[in-house]
């Protein structure tokens, strides 16, 4: 033992114990190996997708020339964009009302707003199916993007309560004296909201927007029950491809979506500055 040894791990430095490192490594392999394999094999020059046969981009080429896949991807992005706009507006409004006002039925509204977050996806999916089949049959053959209306409405319904959660968490740190000061200085109700409250809300609006966008882009179950033959989204399309077999085209298409998600997450982290803050979007951190 000639080498200078590092100090032994302190009692609470669990991360420096080898058992813990081995455990973390195993969990990381469990979480990432399937995804990395999926991405790697999208470049594999073999249909059977198991043994490495050499590098190719032909499946990306195929995916980019598959018009139904492109259409599904465009549909998904359009729905996600529309859903984000509506969800941020509605979520911010309801959060403002709940934060600012006392009114009868507030507790009921609070509970009802939590429902879309806790209700199992399948239940919400069938509810949307029934609604758009019996109450509000969405006309077929509307021009784009109106044909995506039913899916967009369903997505907004489950996204905007999440935005409201994020915005309310942010508003908890608002100093109400600022508002009083604005009022004292002669600003009206609307002016106060626009010039004092909204700027404070802004980071939560960005976080909420990213959350709504990802939730919408990710959703399969609820979309599955609201989409028709001419309104296929990316996950629904991949689902129908996966049902048949494991093919490199699906790998290529999935890799594109994974990269897009990672980029979005990176943007979200940059804006938040703290990964824990993004987790807060799912309601587990104040």
């Amino acid at each position: 033992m000639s080498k200078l040894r590092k100090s032994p791990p302190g009692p609470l430095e669990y991360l420096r114990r080898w058992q813990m490192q081995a455990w973390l490594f195993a969990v990381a392999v469990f979480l990432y190996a399937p995804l990395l394999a999926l991405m790697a094999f999208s470049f594999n020059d073999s249909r059977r997708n198991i043994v490495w046969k050499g590098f190719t981009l032909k499946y990306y080429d195929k995916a980019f020339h598959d018009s139904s896949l492109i259409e599904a991807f465009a549909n998904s992005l359009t729905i996600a964009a529309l859903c984000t706009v509506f969800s941020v507006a509605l979520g911010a409004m309801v959060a403002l009302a709940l934060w600012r006002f006392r009114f009868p039925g507030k507790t009921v509204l609070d509970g009802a707003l939590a429902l879309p977050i806790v209700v199992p996806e399948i239940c919400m999916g069938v509810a949307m199916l029934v609604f758009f089949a019996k109450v509000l049959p969405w006309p077929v053959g509307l021009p784009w993007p109106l044909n995506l209306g039913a899916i967009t409405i369903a997505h907004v319904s489950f996204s905007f309560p999440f935005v409201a959660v994020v915005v309310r968490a942010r508003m908890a740190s608002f100093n109400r004296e600022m508002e009083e000061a604005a009022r004292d200085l002669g600003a009206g109700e609307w002016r106060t909201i626009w010039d004092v409250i909204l700027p404070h809300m802004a980071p939560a609006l960005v976080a909420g927007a990213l959350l709504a966008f990802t939730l919408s882009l990710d959703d399969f179950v609820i979309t599955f029950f609201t989409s028709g033959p001419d309104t296929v989204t990316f996950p629904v399309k991949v689902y129908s491809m996966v049902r048949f077999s494991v093919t490199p085209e699906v790998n290529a298409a999935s890799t594109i979506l994974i990269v897009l998600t990672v980029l979005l997450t990176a943007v979200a982290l940059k804006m938040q500055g703290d990964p824990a803050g993004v987790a807060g979007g799912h309601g587990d951190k104040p």
Partner: protein
Amino acid sequence: MEQSWKQAKAVFATALGPPLVWLVLFFLVPLAIVWAYSFGHNDGLTQIAITGTFKNYARAIEPLYLKIFLKSAGVAALTTGLCLVIGFPVALAITFASQKAKAWLLLLIMLPFWTNLLIRTYALIAVLRDEGYINKGLEAVWTLAGKVLPLAPFQPIPMMHTNFAVIVGLVYVHLPFMVLPLYSALDRLDKSLLEASLDLGAGHMRTLFKVVVPLALPGIASGILITFIPALGAYLTPDLLGGPDSQMIANVIERQFKRANDWPFGAALSFLLMYLTFVAIAVQALLGRKKGVRA
């Protein structure tokens, strides 16, 4: 102080009106219709007569469907348990990591969480199927060993379309749901209590079970709830990874609404699933209140 709504009626109405209308029209009304259908029966091919019958609920608790409910709850419970066992050390390691390592480890857990559920499930298919990475890897080892030992030809281990695959898939998907709340509970612990316990001669395991777990109990409970609820209603994982005998309740509901075209019965099943979810939330809230701490 919060303002009374009467003091600024115009602002109040503008802020609350649209979200309230949206929530009622595009969420509560659809749910109410499903609820109403659950007391009806098929009248012809497309008509549903709401007659106030409890027949659908009676059918839902017949042994066939009761078994699927129990099995779904069992699978969800097993998934939650595995996530807790796998996730707890991870949450512990994140809690006591340096600031920089903490950020990276959280990202490590969260990135798959943000990746599309369908893609993650698809990635697992490529791992688990007969020609998947595990079986091909085993085959390679087997053939290599076969050069020295007389071995029978390699038989792939069937993993796809089994309950095993469903459990693996559910744990894979829900692990972050468990780790994040556990972490946020452990992070709030007073670390000096742990040091005191270790100083006074308790081992790590004893400190863990006598100090850390009791203090972090509300967080553990909310982790369990956050994992159990989506696992109970899982549709995609059993659909893609499971076989005919690993159908969970969500798959049965889907079948009633699509192939079987028995909406009233599907409606009853989906409301039963929803009630189960509410029961789980209520139990957790009651337990939290008894401990005097909120999760």
